[in-house]
């Protein structure tokens, strides 16, 4: 049933184009035939439970991890054959907090990083350092997770890369800094055309930023679509049903959730609204409510469908 969810985007220029990426760690399958498609300029939210393969997918793009099968391209460049050129165009915030040299001071590390990226903007870096309240004289190794995360964000953003790969960018940050980070990202997007792929557990935070979503589960890409598509097709239907209701034969779409109570059934369905309402009404029920879902609710439904 869930195979009816869209997993391929319509044609368009892709910043990230992976085809059938398969990766094993020992006998564990981390990624299974993943075809990730991120249009240029998109803000793509990659969701999935821990261990779903989100971080691994990002690492394949950086050639930190090599897939056994499949190809990956970033801006048309093969991530393996032309890895240095690909990496020159990526700003990466990793999941791990120990990134950079632990013995180096923050200010020195930013200098070090700047030399590797000729497009580094020192004024922007200084503004970010101020915004994130970075202590330039502290050694990287003694920073807390949140403080380190803010340094990583500065490192990733200051050279204005065409592609940002953000793996849990607000992890470890207090609520104020989390909010500030979202503002920084919005500002960054307004200033420079950027494609963003981000994974986060705080889905509600990116409600306003994300315009594409990809759902990873157990190494498989269950669904991939634009927010417009999601908004147009995913609905929750609340139907009042009479006693002894016989149910509805088949709905024109993919049923993700179905919750039944006496006299009321709630469906979360991906499919054409008009036809579904017709089917539901036709079966004897009264459709009380048809609503689109918030991003977080949509994510939960896509991640954990039940019949």
């Amino acid at each position, binding site marked *: 049933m869930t195979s009816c969810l869209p997993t391929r985007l319509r044609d368009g220029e892709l910043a990230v184009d992976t085809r059938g990426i398969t990766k094993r760690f020992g006998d564990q399958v981390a990624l299974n035939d993943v075809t990730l498609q991120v249009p240029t300029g998109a803000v793509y939210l990659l969701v999935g439970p821990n261990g779903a393969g989100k971080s691994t997918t990002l690492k394949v793009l950086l050639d930190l991890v090599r897939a056994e099968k499949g190809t990956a391209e970033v801006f048309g460049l093969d991530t393996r054959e032309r890895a240095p050129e690909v990496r020159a165009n990526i700003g990466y915030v990793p999941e791990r907090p120990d990134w950079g040299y632990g013995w180096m001071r923050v200010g020195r590390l930013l200098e070090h990083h700047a030399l590797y990226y000729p497009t580094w903007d020192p004024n922007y870096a200084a503004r970010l350092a101020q915004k994130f309240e970075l202590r330039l004289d502290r050694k990287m190794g003694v920073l807390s997770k949140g403080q380190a995360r803010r340094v990583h964000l500065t490192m990733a953003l200051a050279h204005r890369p065409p592609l940002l790969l953000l793996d849990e960018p607000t992890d470890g940050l207090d609520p104020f800094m989390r909010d500030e980070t979202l*503002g920084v990202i*919005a500002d960054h*997007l*307004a200033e420079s055309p950027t494609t963003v792929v981000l994974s986060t557990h705080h889905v509600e935070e990116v409600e*306003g*930023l994300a315009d594409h979503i990809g759902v990873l589960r157990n190494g498989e890409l269950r669904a991939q679509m634009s927010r*417009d598509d999601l908004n147009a097709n995913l609905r929750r239907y609340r139907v009042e049903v009479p006693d002894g209701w016989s149910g509805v034969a088949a709905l024109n779409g993919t049923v993700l959730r179905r919750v039944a109570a006496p006299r009321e059934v709630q469906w979360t369905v991906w499919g054409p609204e008009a036809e579904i309402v017709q089917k539901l009404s036709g079966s004897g029920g009264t459709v009380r409510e048809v609503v689109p*879902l*918030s991003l977080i609710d949509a994510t939960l439904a896509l991640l954990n469908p039940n019949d």
Partner: protein
Amino acid sequence: MLISLDPQDTRPIYIQIVDEVRRALVLGTLAPDGPLPSVRDLAVKLRVNPNTVSQAYRELERQGMVYVRRGQGTYASPGQTDGTERRTLAEGVAQRALHDARRNGLGVDELIDAIRNYNRQRKHEESL
């Protein structure tokens, strides 16, 4: 003019922004020929994709509520005297109310009666 988004609102964000601007126009917090925040400023303030704000501004322009001054920004259109926006707002409120009513199994007439009764009661309490 203050624009804020309701996290519970599941409509597309650009539609929410359009509604917020409409509300500001009707309430007068956005004066005719008054400036709207730049796309960038609003995107940062709302923590929203700048493309979404652009989309909202384009829609506002299409509906005639705002106009763009080359190189200077977006401004509210000069006085709307025909009450179009008021009616649109009212329509929006009605839509939400009816949706809520339907959800609770209430009919249109029941809703209208309840509104009238409640309003009468409130007026009575205020005059006391």
